[in-house]
């Protein structure tokens, strides 16, 4: 197992140290944070594979801190709570993955949750990257089509000629066709 890095954010020293000790035993590398802002700072510095965050955190609210960490793509957060209420489940729905550990901590449950979370988070990460790439391709294809249309109309040329013109310009200027298309749309609109 590669040495995954996990930030343990818990204001209670006992529970923080316990979680870290258990994780270290399994070969995970751990970093401790005692408050919400501290958890954000470490996450921004190391981009850990996972953040385990106690719901009763000092400083900025744990859910707020977790939201920032996930929104800014610093890591994936799972919560540790001794009180899993329905309000808590509602909050969980907004997170990357629906996973949490219940206190008191049982080692087996912790290991299972951590392994599950890291695996799923990396899968989600890969998928969202793929989607982003596809969306970009789709977006630029739309732009190129539009630019082609504009060129055909303005210069009275065929579709094939318009495409070739775009491609040539893109190669001459050493920028992607997408950029050229954007410029053409701006010019002829």
């Amino acid at each position, binding site marked *: 197992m590669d040495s995954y890095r996990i930030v343990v954010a818990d204001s209670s020293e006992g529970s923080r140290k316990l979680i870290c000790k258990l994780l270290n035993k399994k070969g995970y590398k751990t*970093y*401790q944070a005692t*408050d919400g*802002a*501290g958890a954000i*700072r470490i996450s*921004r510095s190391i981009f850990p594979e996972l953040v385990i965050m106690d719901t009763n955190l*000092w400083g900025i609210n744990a859910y707020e801190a977790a939201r*920032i960490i996930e929104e800014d793509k610093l890591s994936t957060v799972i919560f540790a709570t001794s009180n899993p209420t329905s309000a808590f489940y509602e909050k969980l729905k907004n997170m990357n993955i629906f996973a949490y550990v219940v206190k008191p901590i049982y080692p087996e449950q912790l290991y299972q949750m951590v392994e599950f979370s890291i695996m799923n988070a990396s899968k989600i990460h890969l998928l969202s990257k793929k989607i982003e790439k596809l969306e970009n391709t789709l977006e630029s294809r739309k732009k190129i089509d539009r630019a082609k249309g504009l060129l055909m109309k303005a210069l009275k040329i065929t579709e094939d000629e318009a495409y070739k013109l775009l491609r040539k310009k893109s190669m001459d200027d050493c920028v992607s066709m997408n950029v050229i298309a954007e410029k053409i749309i701006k010019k002829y609109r």
Partner: protein
Amino acid sequence: MSCNYSKEELLKKAKELELEFIHLQFTDILGVMKNVSITIEQLEKALNNEIMFDGSSIDGFVRIEESDMYLRPDLSTFVVFPWTNHAKEARIICDIYKSDGTPFEGCPRNTLKKVLKEAHDMGYIMNVGPECEFFLFHTDERGEPSLETHDNAGYFDLAPVDLGGNARKDMTITLKQMGFEIEASHHEVAPGQHEIDFKYEDALTTADNIMTFKMAVRIIAQRHGLHATFMPKPKFGINGSGMHINMSLATLDGKNAFYDEKDPTQLSKTAYYYLGGIIKHARSFAALTNPTVNSYKRLVPGYEAPVLIAWSASNRSPLVRIPAKRGNSTRIELRNPDPSANPYLALAAILKAGLDGIKNKIDPPAPVISNVYHMDDVEMKEKGIKSLPATLYEAVSELSKDEVIKDAIGKHIYEKFTDAALYEWYEYSKFVSQWELDRYLRKF
């Protein structure tokens, strides 16, 4: 950065953007931004100036009998918050009106508008570019803001990451998204101290921008796990945070009124008189440009902050500097204001001082050429150079003697402001500080 939507366009735009919340913002007398948040359904009502709030619940506003206040949104200040991905939010800055439909004299934005109108009647538009400094501190282990600029927990294997620098980069990007034109952003002299400069605008827009800037900086800092503070002097022994004000007057047809190519220094008579007014009233507007007990701990020798009321064309040590640039960039840089100031009131007071100089043809004293930090008392006395107030108390009593500046901020704000400042001063005077304990506990 204004967008000039009409009411209908703005409503349409808000629907298009699927906004959920709109924050109606205004600034209280002490320079704290207040919010009345409404949902999109209430936006139309807000744009019809029908949103009311209880003025007596705001510090230093009004008594309970006259507490119904109306918010009048200034549509040109509509900005969508770029940092909220989950629920889309925007803000509009508002003026405060009384229930009889007249502007409320306790609203700092109205106050600045009043002085700007006076300038306009004289044929001038005030342009202002601020240089706002701030500190980024870490939180302690309990999540409270501390004075630390580095995590004291040692993460041995961590490469030193410049958290402050990254946060500043993010702030710059966010401000750009909000329509700011950022001119420079850099680390300042003291550890953890940063500065972000944005382009000059007319005085009202700049005052709005300063308030927006402070809000954005605080929010982005929090997203980086840092605490941003605009406190003028958070740490003894290192530079404090200033908010230098670069200003110029333009004529109504857009020419720089401070520039005169025929003069040997290329400064116009207007510029000299304006400067004369600033120098004359500097001791009294200090209460507004430096409104906290802490402000005066920044205005001490040795930390690049001005102490003496003098001006120079090149030297950076006195109160006013005239940067070398001429033509349309001809401007005056006032160096004492700090970011704890209410920008609306500070600019109103500074402008009023300058206008007084123009009206009464007040000649400025001769410029100082040597470094004023190295001047001794005798030399200062010979040259007639005074110093800025040394305490908030002194500043408030200077203000009480200056009818021109009092007139700029109006009776209502003057009274509430003075009450608050003196209250703060007396509270501070009663407090026994660590410095006293260290000094006297053993000695006596």
